[in-house]
């Protein structure tokens, strides 16, 4: 029996290696979040949908709210504390991440970046493992910011579930396309479920925030319908 790809699996379900892969192909199987190898078997650890991607990547898509750091993730953090030459940043994980003041574009020992407590930063995870404090940076390996850094000039930050954040990050995301046709806005989404939005005015921003939150339980047709309704409502509110 082949593995039930695209169907719901529950913690405690087990698969043999043969189930995940037909015997004639000998590729390495890659197990993503929610799956673990245990005694020559593969165990399911999270309730959700079993996903597969070629050549042999398996993972489980489940509803999550708590972020678990992973190396290379782009996250939005809130600066919580300044300690010596590092900032402590809350990225929604169990431990706070550290951010060195040297890991901003153009910063040197003399030239410190202008970061205050309470600022939000868009950054990438450099170190993420279970024994160490996560470390984030706001530069790429060439020393350029490439879009990362402190997010300034207003806007609004809110939290969503992790699936929704991933859904927004999908290039084919219907919601953002629909909203983009009707509003002008900036958005940045961290895989830790934090989303920052800024639109022309506050009413529009709130409308966008609400439409993103509500879209979690809607399908694409409903999302299109909702976008239509929201843009009408916003126009009406702006006239008032």
């Amino acid at each position: 029996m082949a593995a039930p790809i695209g169907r719901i699996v529950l913690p405690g379900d087990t698969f043999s290696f043969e189930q995940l892969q037909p015997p004639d192909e000998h590729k390495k199987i890659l197990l993503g979040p929610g799956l673990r190898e245990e005694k020559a078997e593969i165990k399911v650890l999270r309730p959700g949908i079993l996903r597969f991607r070629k050549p042999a990547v398996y993972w489980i898509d489940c509803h999550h709210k708590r972020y678990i750091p992973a190396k290379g993730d782009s996250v939005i953090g809130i600066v919580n504390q300044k300690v010596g030459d590092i900032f402590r940043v809350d990225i929604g994980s169990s431990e706070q991440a550290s951010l060195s003041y040297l890991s901003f574009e153009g910063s040197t020992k003399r030239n410190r970046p202008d970061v205050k407590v309470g600022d939000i930063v868009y950054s990438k995870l450099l170190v993420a493992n279970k024994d160490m404090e996560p470390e984030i940076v706001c530069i790429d390996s060439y020393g350029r910011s490439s879009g990362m850094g402190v997010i300034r000039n207003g806007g609004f930050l809110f939290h969503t579930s992790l699936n929704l954040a991933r859904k927004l990050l999908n290039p084919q995301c219907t919601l953002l396309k629909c909203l983009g046709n009707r509003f002008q806005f900036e958005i940045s989404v961290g895989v830790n479920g934090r989303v920052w939005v800024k639109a022309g005015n506050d009413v529009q921003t709130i409308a966008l925030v609400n439409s993103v939150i509500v879209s979690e339980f809607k399908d694409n047709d409903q999302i299109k319908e909702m976008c239509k309704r929201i843009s009408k409502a916003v126009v009406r509110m702006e006239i008032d």
Partner: protein
Amino acid sequence: MRETPLSNCEREFILNFIAQQKRLDGRNAYDYRDLRIAFGVSLGCCHVELGKTRVLAQVSCEVGEPKQTRPHDGVLYVNVELSPMACPSFEQGRQSEEGIELSRLMERCLKESRCLDMESLCIVSGEKAWHVRVDIHVLNHEGNILDCASIAAISALAHFRRPDVSVHGEEITIHTLEDRNPVPLSLHHMPLLVSFAFFSQGKFMLVDPSSKEEKVMEGKMVVGMNKHRELCTLQVTGQMLLLKEQVLRCSSIALTKVTKITELIHEALDKDKQARLKGEKHGFAMLVSGDRVTANRLPTTEVKVDTLEISDEMERSQSSSEDGESQSGNEPMEEQIVATPKESAVEILTKGVGVIGEGGTSTWLDIPQADSKQTAAKKRKHKLEKMEEGIDDEGSSEEEEKVILK
């Protein structure tokens, strides 16, 4: 677990928005969020939802010694539990400052307003009295736990029934619930707490602050009141000065809110009582929300089955028979996904066995030959519809048989 800090951009945005006299969730300044009051199956169990804030209150009682200073009175305990389930920043076991403030305010609201008749809780003066205990569990924290908890506590007290007690000389009998009907506590009035959040040195005022507004606010005023305009509690916290006019305005707003909420509580209590009397469903079942992440996952599959049109008359008798006979058998999985037009679909499996609507298989009694079906159909009719209808439709019932026998 550490609390998520509030970022500067959120703070500025919220303050800006409030200065424009708007709120994040689209409410007006003096609006409460949606309030839902539900009672559990056990007496004295009340669940209140205020927006997404959820509180569960449970009242219990036991017989014990009254306090020495008040030998003719019962005892009322109020306990507020803030578990990490409500908000990860709440710690298990240790009472936080916020928790202490909350339970003290609840105590003041319930005890010092003397809403509960303590003397009626006395069994034998100086020896035996009822100890009534209100346990308040916060299930989810989305702001304004206090108002939610006070509504839950007072509704639970109004809903609670204690066992009846009879005293004959030295002998005290506590009657079981089967033995004698339990008696309600005597509540004189219903004190409720209404919180007001203040911003920009008391320039802006909001009723029922959400958790984000609570993080941004400068000060808070809590007004405890009942619907008879009696002030029970008043507390001001935060660094701000309030004008006399503002306090008066708050109290008048509190009055309208309290009257409305009291009405809602009575309505919910009545509804629960009616449901209990009639033996209908009651309890928390209605609270389950239908949000499903997987809602769009499995598309319905169309399966072709033998269907035939039936007349309206037929459908009526069949749909009514559905809840009677058809639920007995359990269908295999494939059967349930079948997407046949709901209004008039009968699937014939074998002779004398059919599936009607979305229920399970229904089998007619095994009475031999032609007459049998007619009598079976009649039987059903007599059972489920009124007698006179059954006789009137004599002619049309023959029409039914034709359809079934096909």
